[in-house]
């Protein structure tokens, strides 16, 4: 039998080894992210100016910017949130609070499948359903495609977050004579609000980065466009166009637009975190 001391020494060694291993993985994950971010910043920063932020795209050599693309992205994301958040959160509440039946199980399974579907398929779906009958691509179609991508993500995270609310809290409210719907609305939802907001954030970040579904649905536009029934520019499609262009100036602008996109997502993230910070 080995003596106590050597066993202890071995345990300590294994423990430090494992700690170091997980630390290494964490550092690796962060470093990759930092490299990507700093590369984007280095490449993009030089082309960013106020003019770049408000101008529309121009022929190569005449400058041009991404003003209309920022506006388009904003409008379509807003439309997607307007449709996707209420439906997604509502579905998540149903799944968590009343979802113990075959219908809910089916919805859950389909939502998980939908999350895994390549987004271009959603684009084709909306293309057939909205673009063809309307006769043209539009911001509306783009927003709808993004909403469809958003709904299952929001629904599933909302469900998970609501499930985390301890059962004892619900019982406390029920014991006071609160009807089920008020328990959900007054107690469970506020308790899960931070988590629900994080889920919404993830979904917004995800759709802000989508290019494929917009190619079919919103197409692109060279002009400022405030009307949702017209083709609409977006940051991601604009980045795609600049990046696949033959000229170096365009590549520079693609980097700059990417930096702006990442910055905007970061900004929304911070804003939502601030608004839903834990008050209790």
């Amino acid at each position, binding site marked *: 039998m080995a003596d106590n001391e050597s066993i202890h020494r071995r345990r300590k060694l294994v423990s430090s080894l494992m700690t170091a291993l997980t630390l290494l993985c964490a550092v690796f994950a962060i470093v990759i992210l930092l490299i990507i971010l700093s590369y984007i910043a280095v490449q993009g920063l030089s082309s960013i100016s106020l003019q770049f932020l408000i101008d529309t795209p121009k022929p190569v050599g005449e400058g041009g910017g991404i003003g209309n693309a920022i506006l388009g992205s904003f409008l379509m994301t807003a439309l997607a949130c307007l449709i996707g958040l209420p439906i997604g959160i509502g579905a998540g509440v149903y799944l968590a609070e009343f979802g113990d039946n075959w219908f809910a199980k089916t919805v859950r399974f389909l939502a998980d499948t939908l999350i895994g579907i390549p987004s271009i398929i959603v684009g084709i779906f909306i293309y057939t359903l909205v673009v063809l009958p309307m006769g043209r691509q539009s911001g509306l179609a783009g927003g709808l495609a993004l909403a469809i991508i958003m709904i299952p993500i929001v629904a599933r995270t909302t469900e998970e977050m609501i499930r985390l609310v*301890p059962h*004892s809290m*619900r019982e406390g409210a*029920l014991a006071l*004579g609160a009807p089920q719907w008020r328990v959900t609305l007054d107690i469970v939802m506020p308790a899960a609000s931070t988590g629900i907001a994080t889920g919404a954030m993830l979904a917004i970040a995800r759709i802000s980065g989508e290019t494929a579904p917009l190619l079919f649905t919103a197409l692109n536009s060279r002009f400022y466009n405030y009307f949702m029934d017209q083709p609409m520019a977006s940051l991601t499609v604009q980045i795609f166009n600049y990046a696949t262009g033959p000229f170096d100036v365009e590549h520079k602008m693609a980097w700059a637009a990417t930096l702006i996109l990442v910055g905007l997502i970061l900004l929304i993230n911070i804003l939502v975190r601030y608004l839903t910070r834990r008050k209790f």
Partner: protein
Amino acid sequence: MQNKLSISNLDFFYGKAQALYEISLEIPERQVMAFIGPSGCGKSTFLRTLNRMNDTIPGIRVEGDVLIDGKNIYESGTDVVALRRKVGMVFQKSNPFPKTIFENVAYGIRINRIHKDKTDLEMRVEKALYDAALWDEVKDRLHTSAFGLSGGQQQRLCIARALAVQPEVILMDEPASALDPIATQKIEELVVELKKRYTIVIVTHNMQQAARVSDKTAFFMLGKLVEVNPTQKMFTSPDEKLTEDYITGRFG
């Protein structure tokens, strides 16, 4: 002494498993009745049949009658929401809402629309906190988070919350089992104080606690009610051998 609750031939099933067997028990008004018994003997389950809290668990079945003021609460058409307002509950683990101290107490008043106006609401909150012996400790921080309170204070907040909706019966499921001796003593003093106005049923694992606070004690084992007697008698000369063995610590 009039009986507030009258339970007869109560059977309770979780799916196919029977948890309670033919329980008949009278609970007198404005007294403290303690339920004792080993873990898993069904005393919590029984307590939760008294305000139909078990209804939230899928697959349960109840047979028999639970009469409160002569009215069967398992009759079809019973308003469960109204029942739970009348029969309040305090849980083993304190479960304040993620709201301020004030809002925790005000919540029940608001949803049941008991208050007349804002001043009335504030008075009712103050009174409930006062009755739960918590007012002096929280009066300067009513609008801070309830999670900032200590464990014992949180439990008294839950008692205040239950009192605020003006119940007639208060069910307590091991309310002091997670608290230190000083906080436990406060809860016990409170129970003795509250029985002047409320009918109280308390589940406890602590035999001394049952002896200190209750007027009558019921001993449960394996889903059956073994014995009910005045607490004094129960702890000195119980009728049943089984009760004596349990109380003297020969098992359980």
